[in-house]
């Protein structure tokens, strides 16, 4: 708290199950915070199965990785990849040919401590699973965000992860529901936001509707928040604003008028292309 500067925050994004959108969430929330002028670094701890560099479109800029930093082959500053589109965004890449058990929670903590003075937010992209990679990812974190999809397998894994985070002493764990299909909820064929909150009993941080623009953005290596007509982009921006303490209302996706507008927007976008 020196010079009245707020302390930096280390936030881990985790889910238990793979493929629910952890990396997409990390990429977009961090990009969005950097766009608002906050100094952000994203740390990819999915060692051996890295994706963050690809989602952020920074894969060609990677020189060193986190293992090389830990093993002293380069400095932390040398390994950080700067995002040219967002001057306040940096990424610490994972190693692709190594294993998650080659680093320890203490080493991750030491890296975070080294990063704290220079950044407002340190995001950790946690690997799927509950093993060593998960323990490394949560070790240094102040806060935790759990990402899930509205389907039984993802919810069950999310519940297990929430239990493990609680035993590790995390308070105020936040939930992001990704890939919600309001039309299916309305038809009675998908778990609703209320259903998920009833099962998982943690606070809601964001609702990201299913949006094909996510696939398109990922193909291009451009975060979805750069597409200001995409509902998922708005959803991720709203998550960032809530992280900053702003009271951003949750849109009622299950309201039919919203859904009709969303469909209309989609149709307009489609025909204009």
């Amino acid at each position: 708290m020196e010079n009245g500067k707020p302390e930096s925050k280390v936030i881990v994004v985790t889910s238990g199950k793979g493929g629910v959108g952890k990396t997409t969430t990390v990429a977009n929330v961090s990009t969005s915070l950097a766009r608002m002028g906050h100094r952000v670094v994203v740390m990819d701890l999915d060692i051996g199965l890295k994706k963050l560099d690809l989602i952020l479109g920074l894969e060609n800029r990677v020189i060193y990785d986190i293992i090389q930093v830990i093993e002293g082959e380069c400095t932390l500053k040398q390994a950080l990849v700067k995002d040219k589109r967002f001057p306040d965004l940096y990424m610490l890449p994972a190693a692709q040919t190594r294993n998650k058990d080659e680093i320890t929670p203490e080493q991750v903590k030491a890296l975070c401590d080294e990063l704290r003075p220079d950044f407002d937010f340190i995001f950790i992209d946690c690997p799927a699973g509950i093993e060593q990679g998960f323990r490394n990812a949560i070790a240094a974190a102040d806060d935790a965000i759990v990402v899930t999809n509205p389907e039984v397998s993802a919810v069950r894994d999310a519940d297990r992860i929430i239990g493990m985070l609680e035993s590790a002493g995390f308070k105020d764990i936040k939930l992001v529901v990704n890939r919600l299909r309001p039309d299916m909820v309305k038809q009675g064929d998908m778990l609703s936001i209320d259903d998920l909150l009833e099962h998982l009993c943690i606070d809601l941080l964001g609702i990201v509707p299913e949006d094909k623009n996510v696939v398109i953005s990922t193909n291009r290596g451009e975060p979805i928040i750069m597409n200001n007509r995409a509902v998922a982009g708005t959803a991720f921006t709203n998550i960032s604003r809530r992280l900053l303490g702003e009271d951003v209302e949750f849109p009622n996706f299950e309201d039919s008028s919203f859904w009709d507008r969303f469909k209309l927007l989609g149709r307009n976008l489609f025909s204009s292309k």
Partner: protein
Amino acid sequence: MLEFLKKIYSREDNSRTKANSRLRLVLTHDRLDMNEKIMETLKGEIIELIASHMEIDGVPDVRLITEGRHAALDISIPLKGRS
């Protein structure tokens, strides 16, 4: 009327309702690291223990109740009083 009946019927039968009831059960068991079989054994043993000391009058009930992420064992065993 037909619409109303349809609604009631689909509510009970739709996949969202099914998902919720399956999750409720599986999450309770996951959190406690137990299963239906252990629960049945436990229920039997509790009732047996009480019955060995006191006379049970009526139908005893042992079940799990949950509130948020916490669970409790709800034991209700009616006892026979002195006549």
